[in-house]
């Protein structure tokens, strides 16, 4: 049976005060389990990234409760949040955010170091992770010598450092052509299924919906639709069109 890894209980995030108040996330309740590949879609400004930041322990909710495994994130102090991120979460960003002065191997090694794995062990694990994302031949390349897709693969290997149970990806295909983007999403989907990881991805790209186990649609800070892949497949088999 799949474990619940992330629970959001009527979570809201409010920015500003008085007349300038903006409710970025409004009463969102979710329960996410391991081994799932979940997409979060919605128009710009709908609160997707804020929700991702909340789930990534980079923001604390203004209201509601957020649980990461047994930890109630909303009740923890600021010093503990980085420790939670190190232990449980891997991030993939739209703009890769690799250190330009470090090789692919060193970029991944750095993340491993940060998670307490150092020395030869870190180097070996970094090489394995890069091989896992198909970059075994590009270990010593600097980011400037890699293509967009390759950079995102390095970022993915870095996110996998320390084997976190949760991967949060923010528009990871945004800077890539559609073919490369699809490959990256396929890889993310595979990482969720084969390694029993929760992969939660924010995207604008409707072409990758078919790879997800679940698609959440967000508007004005609220989850307005929740589609499960089984239902979609069943609908497809009945010949219905969305």
């Amino acid at each position, binding site marked *: 049976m799949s474990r619940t890894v992330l629970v959001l209980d009527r979570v809201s995030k409010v920015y500003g005060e008085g007349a300038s108040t903006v409710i970025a996330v409004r009463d969102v309740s979710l329960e996410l389990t391991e081994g799932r590949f979940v997409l979060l879609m919605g128009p710009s400004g709908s609160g997707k*990234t804020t929700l*991702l*930041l909340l789930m*990534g322990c*980079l*923001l604390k909710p203004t209201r509601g409760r957020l649980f990461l495994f047994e*930890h109630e994130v909303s009740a923890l102090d600021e*010093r*503990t949040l*980085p*420790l*939670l*991120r*190190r*232990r449980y*979460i*891997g*991030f993939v*960003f*739209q*703009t890769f*955010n*690799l*250190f*330009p*002065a*470090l090789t692919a191997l*060193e970029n991944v*090694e*750095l*993340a491993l*170091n*940060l*998670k*307490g794995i*150092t*020395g030869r062990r870190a180097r070996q694990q970094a090489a394995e992770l890069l091989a896992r994302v198909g970059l075994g031949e590009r270990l010593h390349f600097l980011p400037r010598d890699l293509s967009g897709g390759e950079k995102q693969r390095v970022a993915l290997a*870095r*996110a996998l450092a320390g084997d976190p149970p949760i991967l949060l990806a*923010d*528009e990871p295909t*945004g*800077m890539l052509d559609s073919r490369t983007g699809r490959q990256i999403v396929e890889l993310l989907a595979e990482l969720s299924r084969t390694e029993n990881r929760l992969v939660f991805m924010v995207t604008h790209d409707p072409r990758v919906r078919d790879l997800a186990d679940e698609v959440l649609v967000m508007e004005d800070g609220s989850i307005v639709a929740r589609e499960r892949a089984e239902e979609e497949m069943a609908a497809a088999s009945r010949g219905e069109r969305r």
Partner: protein
Amino acid sequence: MILREEESAWQAEEFKATMVSLAKKNLFHDRVRFLVALIGIQFAVVLMTLQIGFLLKFMTNASVLIDHIEADLWITAKNLKNFDFGLPFSEQKLYEARRAPGVLWAERFLMGFSYWKMPDGGQETIQVIGFNPETRIGAPWDIVEGDLTDVKYFNQIFIDEADRARLGFPRVGDEVEIIGQRARIAGITRGAKSFTGSPFVFTSFKNALKLSFIPPGQTVYILVKVAPGYAVEEVKQYLAETLTGVDVYTKREFSWKSRRYWLLVTGAGIALLSTALLGLLIGTIIVGQTIYASTIDHLREFGTLKAIGASNADLYRIIIAQALIVALIGYATGMLLSRIFLHVARRAGLEAYLPPEVLLAIFGLTVLMCVSASIISIYKITKLDPALVFRS
């Protein structure tokens, strides 16, 4: 709780080394920026080293004789400004000083400006130093050539090797002319260079009276040695109270008075010190600007580190390590450049005094400069919102 325990493991030495390694790679990755920072530090190090070196040498020169003479007390004319501006007073004070309790010995000592006739017919201002050749109190301390006993004889003089060029390259045995009187060079000294730039000419007190404008029966200083068992301050107090028309200083007081005059009153020292401080300031600005620009350039990467679990302290470590690496390389290369400049300056007759503790202090200042220059960057990192990394 478990998370907290894990934190200590994450902060292992090896991890700290990784942060330093990252700082190094970040720094060397952008070579142009690194070179700009390096030039900034080298500029500051060279300016500080040269200016402080010259300043210390000037200060040492300002009291070179006081510091080398083994007197405990100096009796001078009233309200004297410094050693080089010595004024004559009655020799009677010498005998009064000798009678004072606690005085082991007291000697006359003369310093008077005079003129040296150059081979081309021109004149050079000199400072004639007269001491007692029997006791050798006040005599030059490092003799390169000649026998100091010779100064007992008529107008026999010693000059310093550093002043030979200035005096027309005279050699031992040569006859020269000082205010119309013939004098003979009996020897050469070393390390007795005056602050004013006018060469010291050492001779007996008796000869010095003839070779300067000090009238007979007068002295310019009285040097006093305090007898064992007596406190210097007490003897000074007694002499100050009993001898009228003169001032009494301890060796340390008179040395500092002379240095202070040139350092603070004339502004010569202030000018040198200001240039050194200016170097420090400019260096701080250049390094600060460079490290800040590098931080801004790497903000997204720092944000990423923060997002994946690095603490602010981890990021400070990178910034500080960058500053220290630049400081170390900048100091080492800056010192190398300073040596070259000092060599050139020495050939032009300009000496610097840089004891190891001063070099260490300059290193400390360089490190301080670089670390303080990274404070703005540290502030920026503290305020860094890790959500930044989610923006394209």
